[in-house]
């Protein structure tokens, strides 16, 4: 039996990989820009994660892929949609979450989840790139500003402007008109982010507004997007530390379930061995020279009184005298 499982999120603009051990602990994670067609980004993401974990693909027992390129990965044993995986990953990161807003490069989705991270309902953008990372990318280019900086500039907006087009290309025309009318870049960028928030609220409406809400996907790193979505929702967003890897984490958790269930007998044996080993370690503390006093060796009165000096030695001597 192998000791690790892997989740890969082969997205449209980035590739993410998460490696877990069989207890579900994150061993490593990696995000790489791509290269969607060549697959170079996903290869880099996988090798980085393996390197960080200090293992090779041979050590991985199960690999689950997700994202738009999920079917293109030969190393994946199974694939699941990004909706299923983001739900699972987001709830693993924020166990109380009941609604997941995921805004990625090419799509945005709102997912209602149960306490196990399973999808109850979902809605996806079905109108081109409206309300996605691509929408921000197109408009950043139109406004000649770095994508990473646009959120910060948008937060400086003083005036509320409106971009009403559903289409990224037409929105670009609106942005140019607003700038031509003499509006400031922060105000126009504020309107761009408000437009994303309004599309997101539309998706929330289709699924049903509920909380707590967690936001995942690359756009969760954009402070202005978060601010405007919170304002539109009238609710705070919980932001995981690494929102981009939620899908890959979900995929890895599904891989873990699958692998654990396939090897449940061996795992039960291993867990029993671990338990016995721990017990042995514990018991060893009764031998001379050990620093601690095992709780089990004390009566309730002794526990209440605190450890009695020399007690363990006395027991040990008594045992030896009787051998």
């Amino acid at each position, binding site marked *: 039996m192998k000791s690790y499982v892997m989740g890969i999120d082969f997205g449209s603009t980035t590739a993410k990989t998460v490696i877990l051990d069989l207890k579900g602990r994150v061993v490593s994670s990696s995000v790489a820009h791509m290269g969607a067609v060549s697959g170079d980004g996903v290869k880099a993401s996988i090798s980085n994660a393996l390197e960080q974990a200090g293992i090779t693909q041979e050590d991985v027992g199960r690999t689950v892929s997700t994202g738009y390129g999920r079917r293109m990965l030969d190393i994946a044993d199974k694939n699941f*949609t*990004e*909706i*299923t995986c983001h739900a699972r990953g987001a709830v693993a990161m924020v166990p109380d979450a009941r609604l997941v807003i995921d805004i990625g490069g090419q*799509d945005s989705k709102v997912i209602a989840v149960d306490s196990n991270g399973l*999808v109850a309902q979902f809605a996806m953008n*079905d109108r081109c790139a409206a309300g996605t990372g691509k929408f921000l990318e197109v408009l950043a280019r139109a406004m000649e500003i770095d994508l990473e900086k646009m959120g910060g500039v948008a937060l400086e907006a003083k005036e509320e402007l409106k971009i009403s087009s559903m289409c990224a290309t037409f929105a670009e025309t609106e942005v140019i008109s607003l700038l031509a009318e003499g509006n400031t870049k922060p105000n126009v960028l504020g309107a761009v982010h408000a437009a994303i928030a309004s599309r997101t609220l539309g998706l929330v409406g289709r699924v049903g507004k509920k909380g707590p809400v967690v936001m995942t996907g690359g756009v969760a790193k954009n402070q202005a997007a978060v601010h405007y979505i919170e304002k539109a929702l009238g609710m705070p967003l919980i932001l995981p530390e690494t929102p981009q890897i939620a899908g890959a984490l979900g995929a890895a958790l599904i891989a873990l379930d699958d692998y654990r269930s396939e090897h449940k007998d061996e795992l039960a044996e291993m867990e029993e061995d671990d338990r016995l080993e721990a017990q042995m370690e514990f018991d060893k503390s009764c031998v001379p020279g050990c620093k601690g006093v095992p709780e089990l060796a004390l009566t309730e009165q002794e526990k209440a009184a605190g450890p009695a000096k020399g007690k363990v030695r006395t027991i040990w001597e008594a045992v030896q005298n009787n051998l």
Partner: protein
Amino acid sequence: MRLLATLVLEAKPEEDVNKQEILAVFEDAASRPLAYAQAWKDRTGGKVVGSFPMNFPGEIAHAAGTLPMILQESDDAITLGHGLLFPFYCGYTRSMVDQAARQEFNVLDAIMFGDHCVQLLGMADAIRMQLPDTKVIFFQLISSMCDPWTFGRAVESFEVLKNELEEFLGSKISDEAMHESTKIFNRNRQMIRKLYEMRKSGAVSLSAVEMQHIVKSSMIMDKVDHNKLLEQFMAYVEANPEPEPKGIRLHLSGHFCQAPKREVLDMIEDCGAIIVGDDLYHGFRYISTDVDEAGKPVEALAKWYMERNTGVPCPTRVQNDVDWDSFLLKAMEQEKAAGMIVLMAKFCEPHMYYYPEVKEAFEKKGVPHLLIETEHESMAIEGLKTRVETFLEIVKRRQAA
């Protein structure tokens, strides 16, 4: 044009014909309906009567010796039709008008239609203007199905329709001819219903697209020829049982006028579903109900019209003792379907208005369903695939729970 139907029916001995060859004939007619009509016309010298969905009694036109044909949405992009119908009309009506504007309906001698929805009425007017030399016969069907006068009104409508057709063709349609056509149509419906039963039980493996080819070609082809092919098909599939297909059993619902696009149906099955039932017009809705073979033929058609709404309820009809959502839930139970995909054509008003009731009933019962809005223009299949796969993942999980 050489039709596959002719090749198979005339050139090959019956025992040599296999399932795929007959399906290819059905597909050929289903994909080129107007070419089929032209070839039939060239062969027989008869007249072709086109009709719009969904309660047109083809039996009357057949009894008059014509080829009744349900007119089909084309896969071509809308071109000249844009100048005649606004984009908020559904894909079916826009495609019909576009075909008329491009003079593709010249093969038709007459077109008949009933007032099933406002968009169909607008479409018929636009077509009438484009084809001034084509006879257009309009018939009105009562939409209130429970009134004491419903039956009488339906009889009147079909009488008017029959009279107008007789006038156009210049000859009377006898009761005997009507009875004969009714038998032929019933035989066709019965065979297709049997295929539905066989698919449900796993006795025959038919994809959603293959079933669509069978039903759609029945709307187009001469029913006598279609029956002959169906008989060969039934004989073949009964003699050559196949292993039961594996997948998540789903019911397909919606699309009252046009056939769902092939790429959508294929995509749903590629995601791991098998379609075990439907209420599509290009499906069970078309063949759900037979016409009485005895008695007065027009009265039998009126009875058929009324029973049809119980066979598969339609949101364009009003019937207090029938509701579509209960019908769907019951059908799914019989089909052992684990979920339903609703295919809603944009902008089909009757469907849009009724859907909230279906949604509510399904959510109340905890039966998973997914709504997909379909368009005449190409659809973003990759995004749809993600939605369908997620839906199937939800269905699988509920099955496992």
